[in-house]
């Protein structure tokens, strides 16, 4: 459906333009990500052998916290001046909005990860003993897993009190299998300890299941008032 694609693209470019114009938000998120890496490095002494075991966990927990900060931000823009009403009143399909927001969040969180990952590698002297290329599908699938549900629950939280705490509260329990998969896969690849295939497949399954669920149910929660 070309109109679905064009609306999604229009919304995505609009969001990127708005994000670019209020650069403070991105800058503070980037700085926050840096802080998280530094604090983790102080708390978990990076000695070569042990660090490869726990690095998988550390990196993804750090990404998770940075992602939550980003996710809370992107819907907040639609609440100012009740702009979301303008979208809801238009014939534009709800799913186009969801996909655009999720893609925007994906780009933003990937940007944060691109800053944090090299820092982790430097501070922890990380080197992959297993097939390093496999880290790419893990990163992509894992980030999408966090972002797709994160975007959905952030939209849900718009209708609740204590919006900022509701998002992690809803997101973390449901993300447990995804986080476990990401962490295990990363640990296995870094330590060269066997095959990460099961975890990558589980991550893929998680992504497919929840992307479908989000697309099916987004309209329901958007129209809830």
């Amino acid at each position, binding site marked *: 459906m070309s109109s679905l694609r064009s609306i999604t693209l229009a919304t995505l470019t609009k969001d990127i333009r708005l994000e670019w114009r209020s650069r403070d938000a991105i800058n503070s998120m980037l700085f926050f990500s840096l802080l998280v890496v530094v604090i983790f490095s102080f708390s978990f002494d990076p000695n070569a052998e042990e660090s490869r075991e726990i690095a998988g966990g550390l990196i993804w927990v750090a990404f998770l916290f940075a992602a939550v900060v980003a996710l809370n931000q992107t819907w907040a823009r639609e609440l100012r001046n009740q702009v979301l*009403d303008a979208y809801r009143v238009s014939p534009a399909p709800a799913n186009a909005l969801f996909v655009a927001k999720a893609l925007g969040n994906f780009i933003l969180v990937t940007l944060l990860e691109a800053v944090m990952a090299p820092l982790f590698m430097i501070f922890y002297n990380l080197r992959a003993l297993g097939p390093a290329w496999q880290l790419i599908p893990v990163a992509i699938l894992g980030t999408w897993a966090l972002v797709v549900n994160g975007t959905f629950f952030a939209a849900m939280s718009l209708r609740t009190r204590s919006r900022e705490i509701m998002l992690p509260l809803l997101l973390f329990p449901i993300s447990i299998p995804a986080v476990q998969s990401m962490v295990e896969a990363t640990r296995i690849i870094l330590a060269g300890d066997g095959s990460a295939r099961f975890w990558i497949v589980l991550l893929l399954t998680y992504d497919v299941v929840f992307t479908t669920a989000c697309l099916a149910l987004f309209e329901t929660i958007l129209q809830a008032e």
Partner: protein
Amino acid sequence: MSAPEIPAAASIVTVSNLIKQFGRFVALRGVNAEFAGGKLYVILGDNGAGKTTFLRALAGLAQPTRGEVSILGKNPPEACRDVGYMAHPSLLYDEMSGLENLRYFARLYGIAGDSRCAQVIRLVRLDPELTRPVGQYSQGMRQRMSLARAILHDPGILFLDEPFSNVDVRSAGEMVELLTSMRDAGKTIFVVTHQASLLESVADEFVWMQAGQIVDRTAGRTQGSSRAGTE
């Protein structure tokens, strides 16, 4: 793109037993009404009477707890191409200019190109070339741009919630002029306002709401009878 041909006497907005509840609070208590096309309706009432909720239900933003709303014989969401909505918040992105805002909303309605956006901005007496972000506009300019957004897709029906709130006299006057000309061209307009005096001379009907119901409907001056709207 022209508005659909609507016979003026036919009822194009029908509400039957509309009830809207927000948990403990019942905002609309069984509203029944029919509204004919081609008229300007002014909805009045105290705060908490349910006016905003009523308008949102008509626009499809609030789903009825019970009862039905019918716009041109369809559900409000299905009638979205024929409906324009405007509220006291601007429904615009503060960081973008007026034209950029409208360009985006035009895409949502499948309108390509800038010409329609520029045309509509000129209709509300603003300059399409203005690059200043909307967040820096005065309230009058912002409400006019919001109105431009609402009429972008040339809807046959308009729902306006407090469009003149905090707006300077000149801007308000220009908006009223525009609304009047649109009504004369056959559009149906619903305005919720506390400033009925602005619309006294042009309203076709005054709709009085109280405690979640419509309690009275009086003809406006244009119909020849003389009950004046009050604050």
